[in-house]
């Protein structure tokens, strides 16, 4: 035994393969974890967080290999043990909770069967005992109906509940260490709170050590005792949570904060006549109603944020405005005259006025077309540009989105980074010279620093070109940063709307209050305080 230290990683080096060449993706990371301690591991994607997390189990993904350093778990050197010995540890003494519980559970088995698998194979307890234990843990994870929920299949349980069931499953053998890999990233803010609170409580109750991997500093601040910041496979800094939040040492760590502080200056001028007016719109997919009596106005040169949790009808509203989903009732006015409900009956000019940017730039750009054609096509189609004029326009647009035209014009989307792809999505929308751009969760799939770049670009373009944005998001921080007006949606209805200042100032509608108060803050006591306040209100 090595005293109080549970996990000690020294000079860990991991290589990843791309094509035929191996390159180092983790470059000498040290990590020490004491019993019962929670370490937050943060960084943008590609920083090597998950790779380090998995290495703590002595595991390397396909296409990766551990090339150097030592991984010592409770006195056992995981790099020298046999695979059989490591398998004996995994699940029993070291457990793993994946980002997407929905994708990690086997859809063909009931939750409790999957729960019992670990303890039974490791010989920790018998099947009957495991089931009793499962119910007890489900109760502690505050799952509804703890006696019955285990007998459901994964698809019969909501995402937040699945994530909690998965944490309970990781707890089954009472491991010494749990690795949480972005456990709340895929969840709505309101659900994120519940899962975060449940994870924090259970880890404390059993005095389990944990590595909590995330890119969201505010989330990790609630759960972790210490935080380690990674950048491109190297450690930037490590400190106690409070110390780091109060005084980050390195510039990179500070930049992680700065994202949240980006804000566009308030507009003071009064808005003009409505550019788009949605009036009493209801819509349904087949017989399932998704929108009910949605009305709001969108003003020229302004940004309107539409917020709400998933399934609230935000994207469906966008589909009605673009004409993809004709409404069952109500109309959409564009500059005072009604837009034909169906896409096919709209004129080319009506189509040109409303452009869309998608969440996943990967699927929104045809991977086989070069940027020249991707961006050029709308300009060719709507504005009739040909030959030289077209090429000049594409080059202007590339320059506008801050990409060097000569370098990028003949590239394929696969040769760009995530943030660059999203910029191409913006350029394609701009090529049509529209009045309204609908941004559907455009920053959700991006790292915070890249997000900030995109938001700044969008703001600059708005000021230069007088565009209007309809900004669909579930991220309240983004809304605070760039919105002029806010529409809050829940279950297909508009529950609150108005200028940003009015929405963000109390008194709030109950649902707006819930949404706003669920956004994690950079304060390690925030979650505790929030839960106390909510408990006090009953």
């Amino acid at each position, binding site marked *: 035994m090595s005293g109080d230290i549970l996990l000690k990683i020294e000079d860990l080096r991991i290589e990843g393969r791309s094509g035929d060449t191996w390159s180092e993706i983790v470059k000498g990371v040290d990590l020490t974890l004491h019993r019962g301690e929670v370490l937050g591991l943060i960084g943008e994607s590609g920083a090597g967080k998950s790779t380090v997390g998995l290495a703590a189990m002595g595991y390397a993904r396909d296409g990766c290999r551990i090339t150097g350093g030592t991984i010592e778990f409770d006195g056992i050197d995981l790099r020298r043990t046999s695979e059989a010995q490591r398998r004996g540890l995994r699940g029993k003494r070291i457990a793993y909770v994946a980002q997407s519980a929905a994708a990690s559970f086997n859809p063909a088995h009931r939750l409790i069967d999957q729960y019992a698998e670990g303890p039974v194979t490791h010989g920790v307890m018998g099947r009957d005992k495991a089931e009793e234990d499962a119910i007890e843990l489900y109760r502690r994870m505050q799952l509804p109906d703890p006696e019955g929920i285990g007998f459901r299949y994964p698809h019969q349980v909501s995402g937040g509940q699945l994530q909690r069931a998965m944490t309970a499953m990781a707890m089954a053998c009472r491991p010494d260490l749990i690795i949480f890999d972005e456990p709340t990233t895929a969840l709505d803010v309101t659900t994120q709170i519940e899962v975060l609170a449940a994870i924090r409580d259970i880890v404390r109750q059993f005095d389990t050590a944990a590595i909590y991997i995330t890119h969201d500093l505010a989330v990790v601040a609630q759960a972790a005792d210490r935080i380690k910041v990674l950048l491109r496979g190297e450690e930037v800094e490590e400190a106690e949570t409070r110390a780091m939040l109060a005084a980050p040492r390195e510039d990179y760590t500070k930049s992680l904060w700065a994202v949240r502080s980006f804000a566009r200056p308030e507009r003071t001028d009064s808005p003009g006549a409505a550019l788009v007016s949605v009036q009493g719109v209801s819509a349904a997919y087949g017989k399932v109603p998704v929108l009910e009596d949605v009305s709001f106005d969108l003003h020229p040169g302004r940004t309107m944020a539409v917020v709400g949790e998933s399934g609230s009808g935000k994207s469906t509203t966008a589909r009605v405005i673009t004409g993809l989903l004709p409404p069952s009732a109500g109309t959409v006015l564009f500059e005072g005259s009604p837009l034909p409900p169906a896409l096919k009956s709209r004129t080319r000019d009506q189509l040109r006025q409303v452009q869309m940017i998608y969440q996943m730039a990967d699927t*929104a750009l045809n991977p086989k077309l070069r940027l020249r054609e991707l961006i050029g096509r709308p300009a060719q189609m709507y504005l009739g540009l040909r030959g030289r004029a077209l090429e000049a326009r594409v080059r202007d647009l590339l320059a506008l989105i801050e990409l060097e035209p000569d370098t990028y014009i003949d590239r394929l989307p696969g040769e760009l980074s995530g943030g660059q792809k999203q910029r191409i999505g913006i350029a394609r929308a701009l090529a049509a010279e529209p009045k309204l751009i609908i941004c559907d969760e455009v920053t959700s799939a991006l790292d915070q620093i890249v997000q900030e770049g995109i938001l700044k670009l969008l703001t600059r373009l708005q000021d230069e070109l007088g565009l209007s944005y309809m900004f669909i998001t579930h991220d309240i921080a983004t809304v605070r940063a760039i919105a002029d007006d806010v529409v809050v949606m829940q279950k297909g209805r508009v529950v609150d709307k108005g200028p940003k200042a009015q929405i963000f100032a109390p008194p709030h509608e109950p649902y707006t209050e819930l949404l706003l108060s669920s956004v994690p803050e950079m304060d390690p006591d925030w979650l505790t305080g929030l839960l106390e306040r909510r408990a006090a209100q009953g």
Partner: protein
Amino acid sequence: MGFAATVTLGLAGLFALAWVIRAGGRAVLTGQSRSLVNDMPLTAAFGLLVILIYAIVAIAAPVLAPFPEREIVGSQFQAWNAEHPLGTDRIGRDMLSRLIYGARNTVGIAFATTALAFVVGSILGLWAALTGGWLDQLLSRFVDALMAIPALIFSLLLLTIFGTSVLSLILVIAAVDATRVFRLARSVAQGIVVMDYIEAAKLRGEGAWFLIRREILPNAMAPLVAEFGLRFCFVFLSISSLSFLGLGIKPPTADWGSMVRDNATLITFGDVTPLLPAGCIALLTVAVNFVVDWQLHRASGLKEG
């Protein structure tokens, strides 16, 4: 020196020639075509060379062949000699000349048939997947019905109705094969039409033809190209079967499939001549698939740039 040694030597010679041409290409070419040659495996160079040779032979058949295609120029079943390098067939026509003309007939027909099947099948398949609804139902169920009839019997039926000209042979086999291509193209495209970039193009107001041509087809190319290589071989087989049944390429015209059958008796005497046309088919099939594999590798984006 035995026959097997000659064949082995010939193939090795072809590979060596392919290597030399590729090396030459790397030295001479620049830009776009240079990168094409750069990542070309030796098998693909070999395939291209073989296809090129077949194409030259097919086009220049009248010049290359020592004797006319249909004329009886000697006695029956002559052995290989100076005048007739590959001997003569069962009614005394020159084997080598018929082999050369066979490249023109068999390969030409097989290529035209496969190409036609792919153009029709993939365009309809992509269109059905893109449009969906009743059009998709109509086309798919019609194709299902056609596929339910055994292919050979169906071709026989159609050829009996329309007569056995080369044109109707091409059209009938293409129609039968297009059903398989339709199925493949449709299922591949169904995975593509749900992507956001298709929605974005629809929102832009693009028509169906543009969507099929520029947005869907480039992404569906890889499996279609792979299928092309396979189908091409199957078409050879269909033509040979039909010729065997007397409904394919009509007798005086040289066709590799029927040449095997006509001279099959020679095998019992230990003569390899009847296997030569079969060998020609085999070599071309392998060559086509080498090239297809290479294209597939490129199209799947594994070696981009």
